[in-house]
């Protein structure tokens, strides 16, 4: 499965796209903040206790082996919409800790290893770019990325950048 997760509506050309491609526009969904209750680890393992639209998204993240995340960048971090969803995706992990390349990380549930492309847009300074790249590198360990690439772009060039990447997925 291939997943496009975007924080804003985009005109993405889906002609000739593999049927396994799913596009989720987070800006159309109702997703509240993770409350840090650990329910998804210690009460209803694998399921978030907040039954809003996020529960339809994190299973798609888990199943996908190719992901394209599109997020505005604020202070070198994903902005609120994408960050909220990423925080709500922790039911895909277990509470238990393992060693990964010598560092402690959570054990994953049934989560496919992924090739990830992150398109980061906005008026992004060099400092922010450096930190955002570091952040994605950290994410790769906790989000099962086997490869990851960050592409920086402006809001005006966003659709073009996204479509260039999506074209690579076409049959």
């Amino acid at each position, binding site marked *: 499965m291939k997943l496009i997760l975007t924080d804003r509506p985009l005109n993405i050309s889906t002609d000739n796209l593999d049927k396994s491609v799913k596009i989720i526009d987070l800006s159309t969904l109702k997703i509240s903040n993770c409350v840090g209750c650990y329910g998804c680890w210690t009460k209803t393992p694998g399921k978030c206790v907040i039954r809003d639209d996020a529960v339809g998204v994190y299973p798609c993240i888990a199943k996908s082996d190719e992901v394209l995340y599109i997020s505005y960048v604020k202070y070198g971090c994903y902005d609120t919409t994408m960050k909220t969803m990423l925080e709500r995706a922790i*039911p895909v992990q277990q509470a*238990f*800790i393992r060693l990964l390349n010598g560092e*402690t990380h959570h054990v994953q549930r*049934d989560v496919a290893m992924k090739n990830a492309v992150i398109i980061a847009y906005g008026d992004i300074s060099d400092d922010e770019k450096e930190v955002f790249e570091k*952040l994605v590198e*950290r994410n790769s360990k906790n989000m099962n990325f086997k490869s990851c690439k960050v592409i920086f772009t402006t809001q005006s060039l966003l659709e073009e950048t996204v479509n260039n990447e999506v074209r690579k997925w076409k049959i």
Partner: protein
Amino acid sequence: MENIIILNASPRAPKSNSKTYAQIFQKYSKLPTEYFNINKLNHMEICNKIKQFSQLLFVFPLYADSIPVTLLNFLKTLENNPPKNKPVISVLINCGFIEPEQNDTAVKIMKIFCKQNGYVFGSVLKIGSGEAILETPFRFFVSRKIKKLADSVSKKKFCELKVTMPITKKAFLKASESYWINYGRKNGLSKEEMQTLKIE
């Protein structure tokens, strides 16, 4: 007069480890402190308070390798409603992993906020194994480091500190397994049930 506003940006602030870390800081601080939990409804109230303080300490956990959305959203409000006198911003961050360095990216994000908005960045304390350390005999290590943080903020001798459990990673894995098994047991779950691979 020098004083410190402590803002807890944990998503579960009222019953968070961050709250306990903040209380330890208050105990050791030589400067007067006031403590607030950040929630969705009190951003403006806190923004208006900040001008009365010379220093600000954010206390929060690492979420998805960076700052929690609770804090991100507050920073955006603060950006649009800056105080007349900007306090020095210090950070006390904790993560559940044994490596305190896993907090580095979140600290860098806080530094970018400070740089973009004209705040001086002060001290930072990065806590590893922060989920469980307060319930272990190693609590003393954290208290001692928080005292150092409080001293550095009071004396304006800003520095970067870190602390974690002084055990091997292998021992940490074992200890964290017991911690989570006990946590699940209180909810009537077995280890095997917690280990389900099923999602939804």
